[in-house]
């Protein structure tokens, strides 16, 4: 019983962690390389979830829904980049906060205008709605799919950054954009592609999360803030840091919510534990971040520069 609970919680934490990684990967690159604060990243996640919900509902194909989310993320990302974001790279962070805050309000209200305040739900296809048995312990197949997709994206992005030519240019651009530009590389196009890739990954995260959450306006903000915590813990601009930090945060949050109230009952009276346990659990990842920052302000796995 307790072992299977632990295993289930570990898998839940892993699944939450890889979803956070999908969001964090794009955001940390935009932060680290373009030095751009993008609060609207959560809106891209929300748009991805809506695209998946609408297309899946219309075509009965979840695969098409995911594809639509990727397309939406890429297109909206490119539009945003060329219309607003590219004008703000050279400005200071306050302008970034302001502009993307405006975009968050805009996107939240747009989705409410089009689809109303009621949440949408995504039905899973038969093949994914079952459970898988391992060692006599069953776990939803769809959550395994999320973990697999997240790990595949992690491997893919690691290959892209460390082995592919585009990744080499991105890394070079993060160290010395002027020099890369002088060598004849279109650095603006590179930035736009990077932004669109991050947007597509955020939309993918939204599409993957859509069947296990309710799709509604404003769903992007809570997860955005947790993603920011991931990025700060992992070290801004570091994709591998984002991966480890996403898993740490995912596991800490999930296990904390399950075990902290139980653990506190051992030390404190039932009333105190019932009150303080959930409170402490919901603050746990932020406390973790505060401790990491107090000890290592640059994050646990900072990007190697220079």
């Amino acid at each position, binding site marked *: 019983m307790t072992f299977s609970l632990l295993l289930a919680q570990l898998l839940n934490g892993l699944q939450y962690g890889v979803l956070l990684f999908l969001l964090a990967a794009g955001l940390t690159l935009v932060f680290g390389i373009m030095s751009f604060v993008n609060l609207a990243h959560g809106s891209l996640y929300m748009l991805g979830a809506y695209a998946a919900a609408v297309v899946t509902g219309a075509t009965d194909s979840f695969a098409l829904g995911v594809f639509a989310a990727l397309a939406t993320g890429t297109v909206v990302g490119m539009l945003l980049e060329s219309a607003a974001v590219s004008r703000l790279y050279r400005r200071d*962070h*306050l302008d*970034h906060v302001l502009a993307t805050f405006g*975009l968050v309000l805009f996107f939240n209200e747009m989705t409410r205008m089009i689809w109303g305040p009621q949440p949408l739900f995504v039905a899973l296809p038969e093949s994914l709605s079952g459970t898988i048995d391992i060692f006599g312990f069953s776990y939803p197949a769809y959550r395994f799919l999320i973990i697999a997709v997240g790990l595949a994206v992690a491997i893919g992005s690691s290959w892209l950054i460390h082995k592919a030519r585009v990744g080499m240019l991105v890394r070079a651009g993060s160290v010395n954009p002027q020099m890369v530009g002088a060598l004849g590389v279109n650095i603006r196009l590179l930035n736009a592609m990077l932004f669109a890739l991050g947007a597509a990954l955020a939309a993918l995260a939204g599409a993957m999360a859509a069947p296990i959450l309710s799709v509604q306006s404003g769903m992007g903000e809570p997860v955005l803030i947790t993603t920011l915590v991931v990025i700060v813990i992992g070290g*801004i601009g570091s994709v591998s840091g984002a991966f480890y930090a996403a898993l740490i945060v995912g596991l800490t949050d999930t296990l904390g919510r399950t075990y902290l109230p139980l653990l506190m009952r051992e030390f404190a009276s039932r009333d105190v534990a019932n009150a303080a346990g959930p409170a402490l659990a919901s603050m746990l990842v932020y406390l973790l971040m*505060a401790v990491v920052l*107090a000890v290592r302000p640059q994050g646990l796995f900072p990007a190697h520069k220079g």
Partner: protein
Amino acid sequence: MRMSLSTGNALPVALLAGLALLPFAAAAADEPFFTAFFARVLIYAIAATALNVALGLGGLVSLGHALFLGLGMYSVALPAHFGIANGWIHVAACVASCGVVGILTGYVSLRTSGIAFIMITLAFAQMGYFLIVSLKQFGGDDGMAIPVASEFFGFSLGSPDSVYGVAFCLLVALTVWIARLRSAPFGMTLRAGRQNARRVASVGLSLSRYQLTAYVLSAILCGLAGMLLANLNAYASPSSMSWMVSGELIVMVVLGGMGSVFGPFLGTVAFLGIEEMLKAVTEHWMAVFGILILAVALLGKAGIAGLLARSGRSNSPARKGAKGPLLAESGVQP
């Protein structure tokens, strides 16, 4: 210091004078809505002015000031829940909680700068938000009603009129104080640090101590605004600690003019005024508002105060090139 009236600050001073008379006019016209609405404007103006100490003078982009607004609200709500109406205890709770939380979060946050600072202040505010949400015995998500208003030697903040009066006086006092602070050594050091931290360090000043002081001062003042808001609404809810409120406070400061004396006040009037007008036109006002904020960000950040100072300068060619005495930080971008 020189407090001459230029075109630049004639408008905000006239606005303040008008606001001093507003409750009487509202009472005469039997429109109590206006008193309550403008009391909210004044309270948010206090919060924005408080944020301006950290953001405008110190250049500290804190995306977590709603935390202090919320602490102020709950330092009224929690004692009131247990039947303590003594306003001095509320003030003490507010100053103590905002001060301690400000010092702790400020100390950790100021170890970083730039993007990381923004995200850390945001994360700390979320931490406070989730703490309040999970405290079910104090209303949790739904917030809690405040049964008794703060009372100072028999003067109760129970009516919108009394909150209005206190908020007005506090805002005026704060504005005068900021005007003096800007050109005091403390304010000068902060503003210098915003422009070039390395030079400030080479003069031998410890900038981070100044920044921490500014951050904590800003936190406590924001808490006082929260206290007034709690009394006005007779309600405290975690939604006023959400990160959206922190964002709105930043918009108010930037819209008005960062680092200027009247900027946060003007920005708040503009922000809440536009919000109220859009609400009357369409229920989807937020979409329009979002685009407006985006436009403000793209256009630059001299704000309303900067615009007024510029128009003041072009009207009197003799003073061309002279800085408006009170308005517009040098960060006015062409």
